[in-house]
């Protein structure tokens, strides 16, 4: 199933949840935030929110900055 992840096209397992995607990417949910189709996805929805074909997903975190 195709989604857009941080601006790039990406193939992922069908019906995988956001949590599964984060685990697959080895990302800790406590250090990231997720935007699904331009709307923020609350952390408590990561487990049961399934991704759909064509979803636009942004995963951000903190980096060094001033």
């Amino acid at each position, binding site marked *: 199933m195709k989604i857009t992840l941080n601006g790039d096209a990406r193939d992922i397992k069908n019906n995988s949840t956001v949590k599964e995607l984060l685990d697959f990417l080895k990302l800790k949910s406590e250090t*990231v935030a997720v935007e699904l189709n331009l709307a923020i996805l*609350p*952390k408590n929805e990561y487990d049961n929110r399934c991704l759909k074909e064509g979803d636009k997903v942004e*995963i*951000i975190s*903190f*980096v060094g*900055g*001033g």
Partner: protein
Amino acid sequence: MDKMLKIGKYEFKSRLFVGTGKYPTFQLMKEALEASGTDCVTVAVRRVNLTDKSKESLLDYIDPMKYKILPNTAGCYNVGEAVRTARLAREVGLSDMIKLEVIGDEKTLYPDLSGLIEATKTLVKEGFTVLPYTSDDLITALRLQDAGAACVMPLGAPIGSGLGLTNPMNIQIIISRLKVPVIVDAGVGTASDVAVAMELGADGVLLNTGIALAKDPALMARAMKQACEAGRAAYLAGRITRKYFMAEPSSPKEGILR
């Protein structure tokens, strides 16, 4: 002892705010942050780097128990981008403070003042503790205060320029007119720049490049810490007035051998 610095609902013992960008290594950054004595570090909000896994994460080097995290909206050129970035930053769950930047020009990184006021209003309504990066313009500072900003952060000079305070009078005018804290943000190149800002009565100073790109970041961080305390103490101690064109002997005029 000096009172704590209050910004919105938060209190800080140190009046120095330090950025986490541009250090040669995360380890050098960690040492510099410790040497600076800061309670609060700024971070940028960026897409997770999915290609380079190896890359260590900033947060492995910053203890959120020790430092309050102040995310910024650096790189945002309009209200929409800034608000969107602020919301994502808060969603990470480490802080509801936001160093609000709405950049108006890529070369100088000077803020878009109208956009900044608008974004401040929006984020304050959403419950953010907003720390806006602004110019040294008094009127904008007053509008930001009216909009509910927790403090105002006028720039001393362009970000990363190291020029110090290019217009001290404007900073002093802002300090004398605002009720919320005034944090001088950007432009600091060396310790004396911090001392000068604090001596004007600034409530704090935020800097990054001045430490991160110094030859010895940890040593410069210590210098900035001491300069911040020195400037604050000098402000509270009440400096002597300046005398022009003449001297005032410090030794007595009586009892001189003749």
